[in-house]
């Protein structure tokens, strides 16, 4: 490769990285500045963080929203991983014609857009008394075709010899799953966990539909509410955005490596 081309490549990458990072950098800086400084275009961190924290917690019930978001997302992720991996394992390890047929029907559900099921789900859930509840938040997205497919794919690379050996040792089928499959497929679980937690945390449409009570709101809903008012304190607003972003960013960074490995397994 010529030197000119090489330089062009690096310039392109640096530009792409700058565009990707700058809005986030700006958000972090704005969270530490006064609203007036933000409007003046200050793009270095300031000393107003604690004042913004105080204002934000006075304006909105951040504690409740954060608690709810963590509760909904963690419960959903744990249940979802167990149910989807169990299903994916079941479809692959014990596969036969009937199960393959059921799997293709499940894959069809990937095409069903959420807006098409949202209204009946809302009617069903309000009749069942599940508005403003954790079960109402999690039930529609516990089992997703994407995750089942992902675990089915990874079960394909799980050696049958291990299963046979475990059976000879007298391990029951469910224990083979929990004691052999789960520990072996750590990277798939990490990828699935990242995806599920992020989707749950970031979900906005569904909680906006069913969380009608102020005590049940989630963090993204609070951020959206903050921009609805007339007077906007930009420092405070960006602090809320930052708080809303941190949990998913942390999960992502902790699991980044396994995430890439898990995705590789899923698209093979």
């Amino acid at each position, binding site marked *: *490769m010529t030197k000119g*081309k090489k330089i062009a*490549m690096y310039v392109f990458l640096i530009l*792409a*990285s700058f565009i*990707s*990072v700058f*809005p*986030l950098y700006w958000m972090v800086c*704005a969270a530490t500045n006064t609203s007036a400084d933000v409007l003046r*275009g200050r793009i270095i961190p300031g000393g107003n963080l604690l004042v913004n924290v105080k204002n934000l917690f006075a304006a909105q019930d951040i504690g409740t929203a954060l608690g709810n978001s963590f509760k909904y997302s963690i419960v959903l992720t744990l249940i979802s991983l167990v*149910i*989807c991996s*169990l299903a994916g394992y*079941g*479809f692959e390890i*014990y*596969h*036969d014609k009937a199960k393959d047929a059921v799997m293709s029907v*499940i894959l069809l*559900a990937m*095409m*069903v*857009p959420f*807006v098409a*099921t*949202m*209204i*009946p*789900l*809302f*009617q*069903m859930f309000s009749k069942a008394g599940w508005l403003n509840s954790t079960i109402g938040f999690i039930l529609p*997205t*516990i*089992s*997703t075709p994407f995750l*089942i497919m992902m675990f089915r794919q990874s079960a394909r690379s799980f050696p049958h010899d291990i299963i046979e050996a475990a059976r000879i040792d007298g391990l029951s089928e469910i224990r083979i799953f929990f004691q052999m499959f789960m520990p072996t497929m750590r990277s798939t679980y990490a990828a699935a966990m990242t995806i599920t937690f*992020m989707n749950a945390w*970031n979900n*906005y449409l569904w909680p*906006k539909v069913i969380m009608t009570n102020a005590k049940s709101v989630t*963090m*993204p809903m609070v*951020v*959206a509410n903050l*921009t609805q008012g007339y007077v906007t304190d930009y420092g405070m607003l*960006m602090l809320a*955005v930052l708080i*809303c*972003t941190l949990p*998913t*960013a942390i999960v*992502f960074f902790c699991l*980044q490596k396994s995430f*890439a490995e898990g*995705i*590789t397994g899923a*698209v*093979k």
Partner: protein
Amino acid sequence: MSKPSMKLSLDKKHNLTGWIFLTPGALLILFMSFVPMIKALILSFKTGNGGALTWSDPIFRNYSQMFKDTVFIQSIKNTFFYLIIQVPIMLILALILASILNNRNLRFKGAFRTMIFLPCATSLVAYATVFRTLFANNGLVNLVLTKIGILSQPYSFLTHVWSARIIIVLALLWRWTGYNMVFYLSGLQNIEYSVYEAAKIDGASPMQTFFKITVPLLKPTILLTAIMSTNGTLQLFDESVNLTDGGPANASITMSHYIYNLSFKYVPKFGYAAAMSFLILILVAILAFVQMKVGDKRD
């Protein structure tokens, strides 16, 4: 003769175990996707406000009515504008970035990859709020543009029809390019690197390598990302609500946003909204089918 029968019963037992394992997941999908979908179809043939719904007369009234609904027509146009402009640009950009980052001699590869993927760690509401603030009348973009003299006075990006739509496209590109890039990078890792080295020895230009090796070998992944992005774009909601609020005057509203407004913002028109949502379902199915056909053809 006891051995074969024991094997048979063991097979039966395993078969049953498989069914037990997959039942919770399968039942949840049945009751959370397929049952509501059928309920939505039935609902789409009913009319009325709030809870009191009756069969519409004629039965397709909701469907014929929605094609006379100017806001709905506008929302279809907007959604397809986002789809046709944003998805190809994003996928091409992601492919280019991935093939550059796949180069073994590149330095700081990990740092570049992490930075470009970083936007995916943000929540949709969060990044929409950041973009809304950056492009506001008194936001940073206007400040910079007026300071360096490109604009004489702040331009109201979010209240002009085309700039509002283009900002949604820019925001989507920012959020999702890195996400698709990761899929391509994973796909590229499955391609033997020696293929690239052989091409280099044979004197293939980077352009030729890209079109003759990378694109054909990544076809399944490209198909997957194309279907996922199409599906996602047809369901756009968060950006429309939080970035432009569908405005100015519904000029940037998406189909999902309009359906939400009809169902939950004003007096609920569940039947009418369900008919629209069913149209989206049909659109998603048709587009996925077309993409799969096109994806198959080049083999």
